Protein backbone atom coordinates (compact mmCIF):
# COMPACT_ATOMS: atom_id res chain seq x y z
CA UNK A 1 0.00 0.00 0.00
CA UNK A 2 2.75 2.44 -0.90
CA UNK A 3 2.40 5.15 -3.48
CA UNK A 4 5.16 7.15 -5.02
CA UNK A 5 5.71 10.30 -3.03
CA UNK A 6 7.85 13.17 -4.14
CA UNK A 7 9.38 14.14 -0.83
CA UNK A 8 9.75 12.76 2.64
CA UNK A 9 7.94 14.44 5.51
CA UNK A 10 9.97 17.18 7.17
CA UNK A 11 9.23 19.24 10.27
CA UNK A 12 7.40 22.50 9.57
CA UNK A 13 6.68 21.60 5.94
CA UNK A 14 2.94 20.90 5.64
CA UNK A 15 1.73 18.69 2.83
CA UNK A 16 -1.69 18.08 1.38
CA UNK A 17 -3.02 14.77 0.06
CA UNK A 18 -6.38 15.45 -1.58
CA UNK A 19 -8.47 17.06 1.13
CA UNK A 20 -6.20 15.83 3.91
CA UNK A 21 -3.39 17.80 5.55
CA UNK A 22 -0.31 16.47 7.32
CA UNK A 23 1.95 18.84 9.23
CA UNK A 24 4.92 17.43 11.08
CA UNK A 25 5.45 19.95 13.85
CA UNK A 26 8.54 18.30 15.30
CA UNK A 27 10.16 14.89 15.59
CA UNK A 28 7.57 14.00 18.20
CA UNK A 29 4.33 15.59 17.01
CA UNK A 30 2.15 15.74 13.91
CA UNK A 31 -0.98 17.73 13.19
CA UNK A 32 -3.56 16.17 10.85
CA UNK A 33 -6.44 18.06 9.28
CA UNK A 34 -9.15 18.05 6.65
CA UNK A 35 -11.19 15.09 5.54
CA UNK A 36 -10.42 11.70 4.10
CA UNK A 37 -12.82 9.67 1.97
CA UNK A 38 -12.48 7.06 -0.75
CA UNK A 39 -11.36 9.42 -3.47
CA UNK A 40 -9.09 11.60 -1.39
CA UNK A 41 -5.84 9.70 -1.79
CA UNK A 42 -6.32 7.16 0.97
CA UNK A 43 -3.38 5.04 -0.17
CA UNK A 44 -1.00 7.95 -0.07
CA UNK A 45 -2.25 8.96 3.36
CA UNK A 46 -1.68 5.38 4.55
CA UNK A 47 1.83 5.53 3.12
CA UNK A 48 2.46 8.87 4.86
CA UNK A 49 1.30 7.51 8.22
CA UNK A 50 3.56 4.52 7.67
CA UNK A 51 6.38 6.95 6.93
CA UNK A 52 5.65 8.70 10.23
CA UNK A 53 5.80 5.37 12.03
CA UNK A 54 9.19 4.53 10.50
CA UNK A 55 10.43 8.01 11.35
CA UNK A 56 9.44 7.52 15.00
CA UNK A 57 11.15 4.13 15.14
CA UNK A 58 14.31 5.29 13.36
CA UNK A 59 14.67 8.31 15.61
CA UNK A 60 13.83 6.30 18.72
CA UNK A 61 11.01 8.62 19.74
CA UNK A 62 9.32 7.05 22.72
CA UNK A 63 6.17 9.16 22.72
CA UNK A 64 4.55 10.58 19.59
CA UNK A 65 1.68 13.08 19.61
CA UNK A 66 -0.97 12.97 16.88
CA UNK A 67 -3.32 15.96 16.86
CA UNK A 68 -6.47 15.01 14.93
CA UNK A 69 -8.69 17.85 16.11
CA UNK A 70 -8.79 19.47 12.68
CA UNK A 71 -9.84 16.24 10.97
CA UNK A 72 -13.49 16.83 10.15
CA UNK A 73 -14.23 13.42 8.76
CA UNK A 74 -12.56 10.12 7.94
CA UNK A 75 -13.99 7.11 6.18
CA UNK A 76 -13.77 3.59 7.52
CA UNK A 77 -10.52 2.88 5.70
CA UNK A 78 -8.90 5.74 7.57
CA UNK A 79 -10.11 4.39 10.91
CA UNK A 80 -8.21 1.28 9.94
CA UNK A 81 -5.06 3.33 9.31
CA UNK A 82 -5.18 4.30 12.99
CA UNK A 83 -5.76 0.68 14.02
CA UNK A 84 -2.69 -0.37 12.03
CA UNK A 85 -0.59 2.46 13.44
CA UNK A 86 -1.50 1.54 17.02
CA UNK A 87 -0.59 -2.05 16.24
CA UNK A 88 2.83 -1.02 14.92
CA UNK A 89 3.43 1.33 17.86
CA UNK A 90 2.70 -1.47 20.29
CA UNK A 91 5.05 -3.86 18.50
CA UNK A 92 7.79 -1.23 18.40
CA UNK A 93 7.31 -0.13 21.98
CA UNK A 94 6.45 3.52 21.64
CA UNK A 95 3.39 5.42 22.81
CA UNK A 96 0.86 7.37 20.78
CA UNK A 97 -1.01 10.34 22.25
CA UNK A 98 -4.03 11.45 20.25
CA UNK A 99 -5.35 14.96 20.80
CA UNK A 100 -9.05 14.93 20.00
CA UNK A 101 -11.87 17.46 19.96
CA UNK A 102 -14.68 16.03 22.10
CA UNK A 103 -17.16 18.11 20.12
CA UNK A 104 -16.52 16.04 17.00
CA UNK A 105 -18.54 12.85 17.24
CA UNK A 106 -16.29 10.54 15.22
CA UNK A 107 -13.24 11.58 17.23
CA UNK A 108 -14.91 11.20 20.62
CA UNK A 109 -16.50 7.82 19.87
CA UNK A 110 -13.90 6.13 17.68
CA UNK A 111 -10.85 7.06 19.72
CA UNK A 112 -12.41 5.79 22.93
CA UNK A 113 -12.67 2.40 21.25
CA UNK A 114 -9.25 2.66 19.61
CA UNK A 115 -7.66 3.23 23.02
CA UNK A 116 -9.21 0.02 24.28
CA UNK A 117 -7.20 -1.94 21.70
CA UNK A 118 -3.92 -1.16 23.44
CA UNK A 119 -4.44 0.96 26.58
CA UNK A 120 -0.76 0.84 27.48
CA UNK A 121 0.19 2.22 24.06
CA UNK A 122 -2.51 4.82 23.46
CA UNK A 123 -3.35 8.01 25.34
CA UNK A 124 -6.31 10.21 24.48
CA UNK A 125 -6.36 13.90 25.33
CA UNK A 126 -9.63 15.76 24.87
CA UNK A 127 -8.83 19.41 24.34
CA UNK A 128 -11.02 22.43 23.69
CA UNK A 129 -11.20 23.60 20.12
CA UNK A 130 -9.94 27.10 20.94
CA UNK A 131 -6.37 25.88 21.36
CA UNK A 132 -6.28 24.60 17.81
CA UNK A 133 -3.34 25.59 15.69
CA UNK A 134 -4.40 26.20 12.11
CA UNK A 135 -1.98 25.35 9.37
CA UNK A 136 -2.22 26.39 5.75
CA UNK A 137 -0.85 24.09 3.10
CA UNK A 138 0.44 25.16 -0.27
Amino acid at each position, binding site marked *: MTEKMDEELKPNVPIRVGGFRIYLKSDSAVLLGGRLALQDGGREVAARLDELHHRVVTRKVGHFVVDVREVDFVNSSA*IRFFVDWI*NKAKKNDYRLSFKIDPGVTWQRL*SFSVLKS*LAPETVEIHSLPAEVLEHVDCE
Partner: protein
Amino acid sequence: MLTASERALRLVRKPGAVEDACRFAELATSSCDGACREAVTLAATELAENLLKYCERTRGTFAGTLSILLDEKQVCIRSHNAVLADGDAEHVVALVSRIRATPGGARHLYRERLRELFEAPQLPRAQLGLLRLAYEGGFELKATFERPMLEVAAIRPALGAE
Protein backbone atom coordinates in the same frame (compact mmCIF):
# COMPACT_ATOMS: atom_id res chain seq x y z
CA MET B 1 -42.84 23.31 11.06
CA LEU B 2 -40.90 21.15 8.65
CA THR B 3 -42.90 19.22 6.11
CA ALA B 4 -41.66 15.87 4.87
CA SER B 5 -39.27 16.20 1.99
CA GLU B 6 -37.42 13.59 0.00
CA ARG B 7 -34.43 14.18 -2.21
CA ALA B 8 -32.60 11.67 -4.35
CA LEU B 9 -29.15 11.59 -5.89
CA ARG B 10 -28.16 9.31 -8.77
CA LEU B 11 -24.60 8.42 -7.97
CA VAL B 12 -22.21 7.79 -10.84
CA ARG B 13 -18.71 6.36 -10.78
CA LYS B 14 -16.50 9.39 -11.37
CA PRO B 15 -13.94 11.46 -9.48
CA GLY B 16 -15.69 13.56 -6.86
CA ALA B 17 -18.69 11.25 -6.50
CA VAL B 18 -18.28 10.96 -2.73
CA GLU B 19 -18.00 14.72 -2.46
CA ASP B 20 -21.26 14.96 -4.41
CA ALA B 21 -22.88 12.66 -1.83
CA CYS B 22 -21.57 14.83 1.04
CA ARG B 23 -22.91 18.01 -0.52
CA PHE B 24 -26.22 16.28 -1.17
CA ALA B 25 -26.44 15.29 2.51
CA GLU B 26 -25.50 18.77 3.72
CA LEU B 27 -28.15 20.39 1.55
CA ALA B 28 -30.83 17.89 2.53
CA THR B 29 -30.20 18.39 6.27
CA SER B 30 -29.52 22.13 6.34
CA SER B 31 -32.47 22.63 8.73
CA CYS B 32 -31.18 20.03 11.23
CA ASP B 33 -28.81 20.51 14.15
CA GLY B 34 -25.09 19.88 13.92
CA ALA B 35 -25.18 16.34 15.31
CA CYS B 36 -27.84 15.30 12.83
CA ARG B 37 -25.99 16.88 9.90
CA GLU B 38 -22.74 15.24 10.97
CA ALA B 39 -24.45 11.84 11.24
CA VAL B 40 -26.17 12.11 7.87
CA THR B 41 -22.96 13.23 6.20
CA LEU B 42 -21.21 10.20 7.69
CA ALA B 43 -24.01 7.96 6.40
CA ALA B 44 -24.00 9.54 2.93
CA THR B 45 -20.24 9.10 2.65
CA GLU B 46 -20.15 5.50 3.84
CA LEU B 47 -23.18 4.45 1.78
CA ALA B 48 -21.82 6.24 -1.29
CA GLU B 49 -18.45 4.55 -0.91
CA ASN B 50 -20.20 1.19 -0.63
CA LEU B 51 -22.23 1.91 -3.76
CA LEU B 52 -19.09 2.80 -5.68
CA LYS B 53 -17.12 -0.21 -4.44
CA TYR B 54 -19.75 -2.92 -4.69
CA CYS B 55 -22.14 -1.84 -7.45
CA GLU B 56 -22.82 -3.96 -10.48
CA ARG B 57 -20.75 -2.69 -13.44
CA THR B 58 -22.84 -3.33 -16.56
CA ARG B 59 -24.93 -0.17 -16.28
CA GLY B 60 -22.36 2.29 -17.49
CA THR B 61 -21.18 4.63 -14.79
CA PHE B 62 -24.41 4.50 -12.79
CA ALA B 63 -23.65 3.13 -9.32
CA GLY B 64 -26.94 3.49 -7.47
CA THR B 65 -29.28 5.92 -5.79
CA LEU B 66 -29.02 7.74 -2.47
CA SER B 67 -32.18 9.28 -1.07
CA ILE B 68 -32.87 11.30 2.07
CA LEU B 69 -36.32 11.63 3.58
CA LEU B 70 -36.63 14.24 6.31
CA ASP B 71 -39.63 15.17 8.41
CA GLU B 72 -40.06 16.85 11.77
CA LYS B 73 -39.28 13.68 13.69
CA GLN B 74 -36.70 11.69 11.80
CA VAL B 75 -34.31 11.47 8.93
CA CYS B 76 -33.96 8.40 6.75
CA ILE B 77 -31.08 7.98 4.33
CA ARG B 78 -31.36 5.10 1.92
CA SER B 79 -29.07 3.51 -0.66
CA HIS B 80 -30.40 1.36 -3.47
CA ASN B 81 -28.25 -0.43 -6.01
CA ALA B 82 -27.66 -3.56 -8.04
CA VAL B 83 -24.79 -5.48 -6.48
CA LEU B 84 -21.70 -6.92 -8.09
CA ALA B 85 -21.74 -10.09 -5.98
CA ASP B 86 -24.59 -11.68 -4.03
CA GLY B 87 -22.19 -12.51 -1.21
CA ASP B 88 -21.52 -8.83 -0.54
CA ALA B 89 -25.25 -8.10 -0.23
CA GLU B 90 -25.81 -11.15 1.95
CA HIS B 91 -23.02 -9.99 4.24
CA VAL B 92 -24.69 -6.58 4.58
CA VAL B 93 -28.07 -8.10 5.42
CA ALA B 94 -26.50 -10.46 7.95
CA LEU B 95 -24.49 -7.68 9.61
CA VAL B 96 -27.53 -5.41 9.90
CA SER B 97 -29.50 -8.29 11.44
CA ARG B 98 -26.66 -8.84 13.92
CA ILE B 99 -26.54 -5.16 14.89
CA ARG B 100 -30.30 -5.11 15.41
CA ALA B 101 -30.24 -8.33 17.46
CA THR B 102 -27.39 -7.33 19.78
CA PRO B 103 -28.52 -5.23 22.76
CA GLY B 104 -26.33 -2.13 22.90
CA GLY B 105 -24.79 -3.84 19.92
CA ALA B 106 -23.30 -1.06 17.90
CA ARG B 107 -20.43 -0.13 20.22
CA HIS B 108 -19.80 -3.76 21.11
CA LEU B 109 -19.69 -4.89 17.48
CA TYR B 110 -17.61 -1.89 16.40
CA ARG B 111 -15.09 -2.63 19.12
CA GLU B 112 -15.10 -6.32 18.19
CA ARG B 113 -14.42 -5.51 14.54
CA LEU B 114 -11.61 -3.09 15.41
CA ARG B 115 -10.12 -5.83 17.60
CA GLU B 116 -10.27 -8.26 14.66
CA LEU B 117 -8.50 -5.76 12.42
CA PHE B 118 -5.95 -5.04 15.15
CA GLU B 119 -5.13 -8.72 15.56
CA ALA B 120 -5.23 -9.55 11.84
CA PRO B 121 -3.84 -6.57 9.89
CA GLN B 122 -3.85 -8.66 6.71
CA LEU B 123 -7.66 -8.75 6.55
CA PRO B 124 -8.50 -7.27 3.15
CA ARG B 125 -11.55 -5.18 4.01
CA ALA B 126 -12.23 -2.90 6.97
CA GLN B 127 -16.01 -3.42 6.82
CA LEU B 128 -16.62 -0.75 9.43
CA GLY B 129 -19.01 1.49 7.55
CA LEU B 130 -22.35 0.15 8.74
CA LEU B 131 -21.04 -0.30 12.27
CA ARG B 132 -20.00 3.36 12.28
CA LEU B 133 -23.46 4.39 11.10
CA ALA B 134 -25.02 2.54 14.00
CA TYR B 135 -22.41 3.48 16.62
CA GLU B 136 -21.25 6.97 15.70
CA GLY B 137 -24.35 8.09 13.83
CA GLY B 138 -26.93 6.57 16.17
CA PHE B 139 -28.85 5.17 13.20
CA GLU B 140 -31.26 2.29 13.25
CA LEU B 141 -30.38 0.18 10.21
CA LYS B 142 -32.49 -1.93 7.89
CA ALA B 143 -31.38 -3.91 4.87
CA THR B 144 -33.18 -5.96 2.23
CA PHE B 145 -31.77 -7.90 -0.70
CA GLU B 146 -33.93 -8.94 -3.62
CA ARG B 147 -31.44 -10.08 -6.23
CA PRO B 148 -29.82 -8.08 -7.65
CA MET B 149 -31.05 -5.04 -5.71
CA LEU B 150 -29.74 -4.19 -2.25
CA GLU B 151 -31.43 -1.50 -0.18
CA VAL B 152 -29.94 -0.15 3.05
CA ALA B 153 -31.90 2.33 5.15
CA ALA B 154 -30.48 4.30 8.08
CA ILE B 155 -32.96 6.12 10.34
CA ARG B 156 -32.39 8.44 13.28
CA PRO B 157 -34.16 11.30 15.05
CA ALA B 158 -33.92 14.61 13.24
CA LEU B 159 -33.12 16.58 16.36
CA GLY B 160 -33.15 20.28 15.74
CA ALA B 161 -35.20 20.10 12.57
CA GLU B 162 -37.29 23.28 12.46
